[in-house]
């Protein structure tokens, strides 16, 4: 167990170090999030939406921005290994689950950084009133994890394809559709301060994340070694 953690940490630290020196994923994610946010806040702004519609529409917009930013950057860690031809040696050196765990944590950290910057900005720029910030935080955490675990798996798949283009989003979005619906409703519940809606969402999101984790642990070695 300790050996597994140490090896996974090595993969994570390696990715983090590479990312700090090149900043490819961070730039893609950050720039995408900021431009989309600017566009949304410029065209829609805080007061174009009727008071009653605000919790729902603002929740939906928030998650659309987060999902699309995720699509722009979360495939980098796998795609880069293939593009720079480092994947074969990694495959021959490391245990597949070690690679999965390291990359998953890396993607989760990217998502956490993205949300930490984006969400407060969004709340301020869009005048999003959140009755229960703690509930919002829980929804963001659970949602971030499930989003990360799903996209990590899809990224591993598309990294092995030749013509990637839009493949990452094409493959990810159908898998993320239920998650997106849950998260929008959960965020709306947090904004309106309805604890029932929040717990319902959290239950659904966490079980989806759990199922995805189990399936990933079983299937990642297949994808990685294919």
């Amino acid at each position, binding site marked *: 167990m300790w050996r597994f953690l140490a090896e996974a940490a090595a993969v994570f630290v390696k990715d983090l170090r590479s990312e700090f020196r090149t900043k490819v994923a961070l730039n893609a994610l950050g720039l995408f999030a900021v431009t989309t946010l600017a566009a949304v806040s410029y065209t829609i702004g805080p007061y174009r939406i009727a008071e009653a519609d605000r919790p729902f529409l603002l929740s939906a917009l928030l998650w659309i921005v987060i999902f699309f930013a995720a699509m722009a950057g979360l495939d980098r860690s796998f795609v880069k290994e293939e593009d720079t031809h480092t994947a074969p040696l990694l495959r021959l050196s490391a245990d597949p689950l070690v690679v999965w765990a390291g990359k998953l944590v890396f993607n989760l950290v990217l998502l956490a950084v993205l949300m930490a910057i984006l969400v407060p900005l969004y709340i301020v720029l869009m005048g999003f009133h959140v009755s229960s910030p703690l509930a919002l935080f829980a929804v963001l955490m659970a949602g971030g994890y499930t989003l990360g675990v*799903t996209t990590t*798996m*899809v990224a591993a*798949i*598309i990294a*092995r*394809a*030749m*013509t*990637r283009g839009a*493949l990452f989003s*094409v*493959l990810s*979005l*159908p*898998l993320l*559709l*239920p*998650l997106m*619906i*849950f998260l929008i*409703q959960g965020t709306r519940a947090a904004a309106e301060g309805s604890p029932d809606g929040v717990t*319902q*969402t959290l239950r*659904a999101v966490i*079980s*989806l994340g759990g*199922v*995805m984790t189990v*399936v990933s642990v079983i*299937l990642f070695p*297949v*994808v990685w070694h*294919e």
Partner: protein
Amino acid sequence: MSSRGGVHRVLPWVLFVWMAVVIWAAFLWAPAASGFVGQSSRIVFFHVPTAWVATLAFLGSCIASIRYLKTRQPIDDIRAQAASALGLTFAILATITGSIFARIMWGSYWNWDPRETSITFLLLIYAAYFALRGAIADPERRAAMAAVYAILAFVTVPFLVFIVPRIYWSLHPDTIINVQGKMKMSSRMLQVLFASLAGFTGLASWLYCIEVRLERLRRARQHEELI
């Protein structure tokens, strides 16, 4: 061999007659349901079976995919591919028939009610599945990646089909048997619907067998030419 060949020759004709009767019954024998605009309820005899086949094909594709990852036999990949091709076709048909009905009943072609969302999900999954297959040249890798993707999609289905509608409202008419277990349709309608379900399942199985044989021949020819 000859008796089996004989059965194979007869079955398509049985299917042909069966489907012809179903089509006739759907328009002329079954009554129009009350509470629906005009004759619009008749589309149920075609819409429900296509959606059923699309779902069945999805299940078949997932089973074949799991088998492929276990056995690594190309035939299981062929089965998964054939089932998905069929599923895609029928999902498109279900979407078209569904949105025609939605236009008549609720005034717009598309409402994003949970069941419409489910079928869109199936469509997106099938489209993604074939996009993925098209992007990988190595046949062994293509088969395995497609299989993994099918399984990933499969585990998200219950969330979309069962959990999402529980949290949100639905415009869609209740499924055949509603919550209290009471049949809403007249017995004639039900008879036609079940006959149609059986007919469509038979039709899909037939198409599936043809597609599997065809793909096998295609691949066998490639192998003969090349290896």
